[in-house]
C-alpha cells in the first residue's frame, strides 16, 4: 500500500532576487494511511507554508509531493485541477471550525459531496452517517450557531472526512478548546484515521496533545526533523 503522503526535497521560495525568502528548504515527510502525526514548530518556521503546499493552495518551488502514491507535484509539474484535488482527496480542519453560518449542520457536511456532484439526498445521507459517527448526529438539523465549540469542531471534522479523502490537514484544531475537549478531538481524529485509513497531519502548539502523537515532525527554519512521540492515549 503506498504512503498516504510522501514528500521529498520540497522547497518553497517567496519573492525573487535579494528579497527572496526560502520558507521550505528541502522538506522530507512520509505519512502512512491511518496514521496521525504531529507537525510542530515555532512561528515563522514554515508550518503554514508546508500545510498550504500539502493542501494544494500554493505551488512549491521544487521537490516532489505524492498523495496515495500519485504525484501531485514534481519539480515544476503540477496536477491541473487543484480544485478537484482539494475537494476529493484532501480534508481540512481549521483552528476555528469555519462552518458556513447560513447552512445547518447536515448541509455544512453534505456540501462537499454535493460539490463533487453527488445528489442532495445521497450527500445528506452520507453527512448524517458521518455526523452520527462523530457523535453529533442529534444536532444534524441545528443551525451551526447553536452548537458548542466542541460540537462545531466535530462537525468540521465530519466535513473533512465526508468524502473519505486519503489525507486530512488539521491546522491547530484544538487551539480554542480546553484540555478535555482538546483530547476528545484528538481521540476522534485517531479513531477516524483508523476507521477510514486516513492519514492526518496535525499542526499544533498545544502541549496537551503533543504527547498523544506516535510520530512528530519538527519544523525549524524550513527543514523537518522526525521524532518518535510518546503515543499516549488521548
Amino acid at each position, binding site marked *: 500500500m503506498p504512503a498516504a503522503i510522501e514528500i521529498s526535497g520540497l522547497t518553497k521560495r517567496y519573492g525573487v532576487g535579494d528579497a527572496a525568502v526560502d520558507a521550505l528548504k528541502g522538506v522530507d515527510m512520509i505519512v502512512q494511511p491511518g496514521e496521525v502525526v504531529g507537525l510542530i514548530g515555532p512561528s515563522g518556521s514554515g508550518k503554514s507554508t508546508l*500545510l498550504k503546499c500539502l493542501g494544494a493552495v500554493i505551488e512549491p518551488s521544487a521537490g516532489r509531493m505524492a498523495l496515495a502514491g500519485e504525484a501531485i507535484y514534481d519539480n515544476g509539474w503540477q496536477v491541473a485541477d487543484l480544485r478537484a484535488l482539494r*475537494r476529493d482527496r484532501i480534508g*481540512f480542519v481549521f483552528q476555528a471550525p469555519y462552518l*458556513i453560518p447560513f447552512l445547518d449542520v447536515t*448541509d455544512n457536511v*453534505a456540501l462537499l459531496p454535493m460539490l463533487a456532484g453527488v445528489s442532495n439526498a445521497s450527500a445528506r445521507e452520507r453527512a448524517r452517517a458521518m455526523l452520527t459517527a462523530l457523535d453529533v448526529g442529534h444536532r444534524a438539523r441545528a443551525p451551526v450557531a447553536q452548537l458548542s465549540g466542541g460540537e462545531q469542531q466535530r462537525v468540521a471534522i465530519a466535513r473533512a472526512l465526508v468524502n473519505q479523502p486519503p489525507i486530512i490537514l488539521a*491546522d491547530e484544531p484544538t487551539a480554542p478548546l480546553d484540555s478535555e475537549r482538546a483530547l476528545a478531538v484528538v481521540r476522534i481524529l485517531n479513531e477516524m484515521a483508523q476507521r477510514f485509513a486516513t492519514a492526518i497531519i496535525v499542526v499544533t502548539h498545544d502541549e496537551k496533545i503533543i504527547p498523544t502523537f506516535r510520530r512528530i515532525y519538527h519544523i525549524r527554519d524550513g527543514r523537518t526533523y522526525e521524532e518518535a512521540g510518546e503515543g499516549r492515549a488521548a
Partner: protein
Amino acid sequence: MINLAGRDILNGWGKFLFTGIGLGLLIGVTLSMAGIYRGLVDDGRVLLSNGGADLWVVQRDTLGPYAEPSNVRDDAYRALLGVKGVAEAGNVTYLTMQIEDQGKDVRVMLVGFQPGHPGEPGYLVAGRPITRSHYEAIADIKTGFRLGQRIRIRRHEYTVVGLTRRMVSSAGDPMVFVPLRDAQEVQFLKDNDALVNERARTAANPAFNRPGVPGLLEAVQASQASSRTVNVVMLRLAPHADEALVASEIRRWKHLEAYTRADMDDILVAKLIATSAKQIFMFLVILAIVSAAIVAFIIYTMTLNKVREIAVLKLIGARNRTIAAMILQQALGLGAIGFIVGRTAATLWAPIFPKYVLLLPGDAVRGALLVLAICALASVVAIRAALRVDPATAIGG
C-alpha cells in the same frame, strides 16, 4: 446542489429584507418619476380627448391655445361651420387664475365654453351640466370644490353644479368650466375703477371725442368694455371628413391656423412638456446611477463580510461559478425585493402627489428588467472581489 444564495438570504432575512426595503424606496422614487412623466403626457392627451374636438382653430402663426396665447374673433365659428366637412364648432377660452376657497387660494384654469358644443367637459362624475347662461360652473374634483358650493370668480359668484375628473391644464391646474360669456368677461373685462379711468382717458382723446361726430365716443367706450375674442374654436368634423383637408382649407381661406389631434398631441408632448420631460429624464438617469451604485456597494459589502466563508468554499473545492452564482442570485434577490417594495410604494403614494402620476404596467415591466440588469451589473464588482479571494486565507499563518 444547495442554493447557497437562498440559504444565506434566509439566514439573515431581516437584514436582507430591510436592505431591500431601503433600496425599494429608492426604486419607488424612480418609478414615481417615470409615473410623473407619463402623467404629464396623459394629462395632455386627456385634455385633448375630453374636449371632443377633431380640429383646433387658433390665431395664425401661433401654437395656441395651450402652448402659446391665441386670439380669434368669437364670430369666426360661423365662417368655420361653412367649411365642407365641419359638423360642429365651439368657442373656448382659457385663463389660469387663483380662486379663493374658504381663505385658501386654489389655482385653476378657467374654461369658457358653449354648452352642447365641442370644448365642454367630456363627462361628469357628479351633478348636472350647465343649464343657465350665467353663473354656473363645473369643476374638476381636484379643485376640492363641492356640489352646490358658491365660488367667487372676480366680480361674480358661481354655483358649482357639476363635478368632472381628469380635466387639468398641461401645468396640472384643475379646470373650472363656466359659460363662454362669463369667461370672456372674466378674461377681458376690467374692474369698475379701471373702466371709469379708461372712459375718462378715451373721452380726453380728441380722436375719439369729436364734437361733430355724435355717438363715436360711446361706440369706442362700448368696444373697450366688451370682448369678442376667444382663444380657440374647436371643431367636430362630419363622419368620413378628411381632417387634414379641412385643416388645409381653413388655413388657406380663413387666415387662421388649424391643428389636427396629431398636431396638438405633438405640440403638447414634444413642445410644451419637452423641457419638463427632459428634466424628469435626467433625474431618472441620476436615480438609476445612484441605485446602481447603492446596489453595488451593498452587494460588495455583503461579499466582503463573507470573505472567510468564500475562502473555505474555494478551499473545499467550490467552483468559481458556484460562488459567482451565489453573489449574482443575492444581487438579483435584492433587486426583486427592491422592485416589489418600490412598485408598491409608488402605487401607494401616487395619489398623494398633486399632479397625476400614471404607473403603466409596461413601465413596471421595463423597470423590473432595468433593476435586475442594474443589480446583475452591480454584482460584477463583488464577484470579481470574491473570485480574487485566496483559498489559502482559510488556512492560518
